[in-house]
């Protein structure tokens, strides 16, 4: 176990190093002087000089990188040009919304994608299977923002059941009831990803059900439901679990759209606004944090896969 984990962590660190160089460089790939671009046309020469000074832009580029990376390792991602606060603070402000949105979305994906995929597989070829597979195809092919807009039109604007935008923190009055603000966004975000997991679960169940060991299980005379859950599903989940790394990557990019459509004060919307404001330190910080999160999630997915499949040496 130890050697594998250390190897994987080493690989993640190398990836992070490469990513940090890309993230660091992009500020220098902006055509023209980054400081004038960030501050806009109205900036006075004094402001430009001050910001150049603060960002250390007059140092050699490798010194700039080392300073930036060293600070980042110590949890200092620089200051937001727009908010005039530390970037970590800006990210922390959006974290509650984004993390809760991601968690609820994941719950939908697991709760809907896997059981419905099982149902479609055990009813293979019937109208239930065809209906569910058609629905999955539809959901997987429509864009998140479109689903989001329709959910708003029907359940928020039309029926008035749920709020259509914003999210007041559950810690500032309102309590858990505020989670209802995340209901429509999480459904919009979950829909295409749950559809993919549904299709993967179904296909994987059907693949496994043709394996010889399933016939052995049936021959024992155990109940068919037990054959499905303890033998077929247990093996089919291996493929599904390894897909969750990709699902997470898809969630990150689609969350940006969803938070914008539903006006949620999350990290995704912060990033969009920061792009419009040319607040490069925030953009850099968010990308760096996202890359770290992605690496950690993939490490966890890999490890859990190895725990589920005894054939893989740790």
């Amino acid at each position, binding site marked *: 176990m130890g050697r594998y984990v250390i190897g994987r962590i080493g690989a993640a660190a190398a990836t992070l190093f490469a990513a940090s160089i890309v993230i660091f460089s992009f500020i220098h790939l902006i055509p023209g002087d980054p400081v004038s671009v960030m501050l806009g046309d109205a900036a006075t020469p004094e402001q430009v000089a001050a910001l150049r000074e603060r960002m250390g832009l007059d140092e050699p580029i490798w010194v700039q990188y080392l300073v930036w990376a060293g600070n980042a390792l110590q949890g200092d991602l620089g200051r937001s040009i727009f908010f005039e606060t530390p970037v970590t603070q800006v990210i922390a402000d959006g974290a509650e919304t984004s993390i809760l949105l991601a968690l609820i979305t994941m719950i939908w994906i697991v709760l809907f994608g896997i059981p419905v995929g099982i149902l479609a597989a055990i009813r293979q070829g019937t109208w239930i299977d065809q209906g569910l597979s058609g629905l999955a195809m539809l959901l997987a092919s429509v864009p998140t923002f479109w689903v989001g807009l329709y959910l708003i039109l029907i359940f928020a604007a039309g029926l008035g059941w749920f709020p259509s935008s914003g999210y007041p923190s559950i810690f500032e009055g309102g309590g858990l009831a505020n989670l209802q603000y995340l209901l429509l966004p999480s459904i919009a975000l979950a829909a295409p990803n749950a559809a993919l997991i549904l299709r993967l679960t179904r296909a994987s169940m059907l693949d496994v059900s043709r*394996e010889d*060991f399933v016939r*052995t299980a049936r021959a024992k005379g155990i109940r068919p439901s037990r054959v499905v859950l303890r033998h077929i599903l*247990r*093996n089919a989940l291996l493929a599904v679990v390894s897909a969750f790394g990709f699902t997470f990557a898809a969630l990150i990019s689609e969350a940006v759209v969803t938070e914008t459509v539903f006006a949620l004060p999350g990290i995704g919307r912060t990033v969009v606004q920061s792009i419009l404001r040319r607040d490069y330190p925030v953009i850099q910080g968010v990308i760096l944090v996202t890359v770290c999160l992605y690496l950690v999630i993939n490490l966890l997915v890999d490890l859990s896969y190895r725990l589920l499949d005894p054939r893989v040496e740790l």
Partner: protein
Amino acid sequence: MLSVTDLTVSAGPRTSPIGIVRGVSLGVDQGEILCLVGESGCGKSMTSLALMGLLPPGARVSGGSVELDGHDITHLAPHRRVRAGRGKLAMVFQEPMTSLNPVTRIGWQIEEAVRVHDPDANPTDRARELLEMVRIPDAANQLSAYPHELSGGMRQRVMIAIALACRPRVLIADEPTTALDVTIQRQVLGIIRELCDDLDMGVIFITHDLGVVAQIADRVAVMYAGRLVETGAVAPLFRAPLHPYTERLMACLPDPAARSKGFATIPGSAPRPGEIPDGCAFAPRCPRAQDVCRGGEVPVVRPEGGRRALCHFPLAEGETA
């Protein structure tokens, strides 16, 4: 004990079904090993799966019956047989490498069967006892092994242990040793022979290898194109085959003790289901075939000694086809 009457298995559309097993009748008694032999594709596996109620999707029992101790179990899936108290058939499959669940321990897989068939037993104790019965060394520790940690021969023993957990009256073994090398094969054959005697169960042993038949069989049923063309006790059948197909199969045996004339093969190939000719299916490859063989019913020959063959021109003793 197990009695199969006129079993027919078909595939394809119901309006134009393709016959895979075409009227097989056989019986097995306690403590007896019946070997079902025939070339690959003649329907041996489909026959055994039909007996177990485990036919793959697309294939179905379209006629005949399977009775165990007088109870009709033809159309019962295994779990329904258990519920009806008739789950007394068990099977060992050809592929030891893929027939065990790769992600669970073998103890778990045996105990699962014990719980269904022996609800009062302690599953772990019984599982260990079963592993000892198939002569797995260090049985108590092997319970926690995963299938990939075991060799092919060991896995096949585990498969036999799982089958025995069902306390079968009849054990069906579908080419259980084909995937194993010769020494391991001999050990597994020894275990099956011994269990058959000790537990007084019937065994249907499927193989395409007459050498294996000679080692293990009490009785033999020779299958060709979905039919049993000859059945009988092993010694007389080997000494004086009635059906030219049986005789030709034996002529292909490399073992000189079993009347070999080199490494002959039967020219031509067995017909596939759906392309089986009228009359005797072996006629196109049979040196003795005449016009009468190529259509109509083939007569049954029943000399003394419980033997039976489907042939117009059965061989006399010492004759070759």
